[in-house]
């Protein structure tokens, strides 16, 4: 395939989307144009690209998509609400903010507003400041054609978590939410993101969240991915941390046909803590891909990364975790591990933990395991009267439970345990 041909394909894909009228076109022309410019010389990623080696995007790129705002959707939010937990709620529908369904804070600590309400200065000081829009096709696509976005600014310790609910519906619809999450000095905030999709067919969800974790602030981001059929998901989260801050991203994938998560953390201050946890359990023909980067630029920091998954039937799991420790980043403790259980002979797991260390005084470890369920343990439990299914479920629960236990909000932990059928 010649590159001109591919480029034409990209152009078609992009110009089709570009016919849609999107908000903030004028206000953010410069920024959108940086994305457009990147797109003009980017091609669809193929499996020849190292970054996309195990994840084919042809299911996405073969389609023509439309944006589809639904001003008055009927959504039953009780499905995703967390029992016993009071939260602020932001509802986005097909990538567009729905203020009516949302319940926003009315206090000085937490400011939540749509991009429309942001000053140009607010937007330009954060938007795309984090992101590599030059080499990543889908991030560039979001930058050029994001549908709408929310900005959250935490100025202190938030009294409640924020629950961000992303609702998707429609046939050949593209949703490209773009959000900016800022925790200012000494602030603390938890954000829970839930997904809902209904009647989706060839739906393409391509979200980008940028996180700016200010000095001595702490942000915990919980991403619950529990999708029905008919949606392809690329979820990109990029964070920068300033000194003494904590950023934790928890990614729990329960269901989804095709999911690619990119979680990238740039640690730009000393004495930071970064935690990335994830659990996934692809089954049938599902494809779940987690790519992460932790970039230690400054000394005296700690990062913990633990992803665990079970792969069943003909499903595929992908894990790629890169940890960089830059030349000046001495005294770094960086731990990374990825453990997998393959529950069928046709299940595939591609796991690649990578460590690139340019400093000499560091403590780093990384490792990856892929194995079968412990048959001896299954037998032990069966010999006490448990059915094979219960024994297997208990053992899987024990296995994935380790990363679910990391959740710091008890009500949420309950909910996630329940979703995984653990309790």
């Amino acid at each position, binding site marked *: 395939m010649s590159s001109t041909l591919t480029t034409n394909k990209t152009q078609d894909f992009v110009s089709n989307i570009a016919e849609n009228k999107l908000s903030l076109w004028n206000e953010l022309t410069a920024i959108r144009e940086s994305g457009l410019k990147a797109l003009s010389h980017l091609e669809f990623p193929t499996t020849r690209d190292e970054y996309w080696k195990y994840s084919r995007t042809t299911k996405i790129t073969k389609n023509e998509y439309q944006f589809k705002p639904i001003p008055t959707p009927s959504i039953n939010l009780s499905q995703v609400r967390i029992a016993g937990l009071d939260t602020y709620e932001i509802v986005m529908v097909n990538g567009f903010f729905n203020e009516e369904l949302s319940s926003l804070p009315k206090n000085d600590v937490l400011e939540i507003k749509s991009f429309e309400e942001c000053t140009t200065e607010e937007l330009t000081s954060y938007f795309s400041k984090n992101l590599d829009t030059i080499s990543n096709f889908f991030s560039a696509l979001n930058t050029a054609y994001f549908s709408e976005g929310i900005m959250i600014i935490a100025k202190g310790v938030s009294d409640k978590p924020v629950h961000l609910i992303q609702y998707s519906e429609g046939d050949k619809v593209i949703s490209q939410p773009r959000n900016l999450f800022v925790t200012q000095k000494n602030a603390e905030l938890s954000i829970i993101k839930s997904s809902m999709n209904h009647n989706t067919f060839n739906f393409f969800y391509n979200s980008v969240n940028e996180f700016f974790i200010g000095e001595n602030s702490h942000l915990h981001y919980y991403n619950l991915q529990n999708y029905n059929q008919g949606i392809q998901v690329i979820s990109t989260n990029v964070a920068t941390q300033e000194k003494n801050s904590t950023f934790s991203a928890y990614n729990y994938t329960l269901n989804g046909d095709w999911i690619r998560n990119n979680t990238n953390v740039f640690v730009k201050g000393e004495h930071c803590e970064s935690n990335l946890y994830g659990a996934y359990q692809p089954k049938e023909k599902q494809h779940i891909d987690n790519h992460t980067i932790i970039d230690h630029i400054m000394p005296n920091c700690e990062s913990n990364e633990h992803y665990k998954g079970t792969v069943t039937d003909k499903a595929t799991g992908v894990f790629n975790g890169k940890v960089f420790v830059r030349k000046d980043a001495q005294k770094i403790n960086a731990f990374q591990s990825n453990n997998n259980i393959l529950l069928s002979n046709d299940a595939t797991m591609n796991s690649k933990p990578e460590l690139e260390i340019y400093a000499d005084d560091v403590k780093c470890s990384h490792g990856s395991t892929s194995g079968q369920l*412990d048959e*001896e*343990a299954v*037998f*032990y*439990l*069966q*010999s*006490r*009267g*448990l*059915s*094979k299914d*219960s*024994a297997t479920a*208990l*053992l899987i*629960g*024990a*296995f994935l*439970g*380790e990363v679910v236990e990391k959740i710091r909000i008890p009500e949420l932990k309950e909910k996630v345990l329940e979703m995984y059928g653990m309790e």
Partner: protein
Amino acid sequence: MISIKNLHASIDGKEILKGINLEVKAGEVHAIMGPNGSGKSTLSSVLAGNEDYEITEGSVDFLGEDLLEFSTEERARMGIFLAFQYPIEIPGVSNMNFLRTAINETRESRGEESIAAKEFLAMVKEKSALVELDQSLLKRYVNEGFSGGEKKRNEIFQMAMLEPKLAILDETDSGLDIDALKIVSHGVNTLKNKDNATVVITHYQRLLDYIVPDFVHVLYKGKIVKSGTKELALELEEKGYDWIKEEVNA
């Protein structure tokens, strides 16, 4: 209760059990002794339904049923209990949680109601006291970080909770000091009644001072080569196994 006839079993094409015959009646205690590698653990695994072993010949009747037709969990629910020689650790699975599931699935299979939380806790309290197993251990993950003795006591505790008809204790005494041995034996003796039966597999006569067997069998090279009463155990203690090996190999 159980009647084993001409049982042959192999693993990876290698025959380990070469025609076992054994009859155990309700209310009885049988001891199986024998040198290392003679097939004692294999016999218990096969009876518990471990599918790694292939049964090539023979039959096992348990309470009128063809035991070999049943899965491991079905056998457990019918009343077979195996106290493992090497109880494994299962990180992430709590002792209490899995036992409760075990009891409830067993009850469900019998068409009984599931156990009430209060009843379960009372039972845990009583049965753990029986084997002097610290209740805090039960809240932990199965055998994780348990000492050798604690693991063995946990096996007997589980037996007490599950109230089996036939308990097979595979070298439950090995690695126990004399005090622990007394505790474990006391537990086993307390659970004994006229309707259940116990098979104790052991290396040492010592255990049989505390759990007194009605019959003693010697398993050697996959066969029961000698049976007798408790005096046989004493004789083995005194003379070792060489005279039996000679008899068999002659």
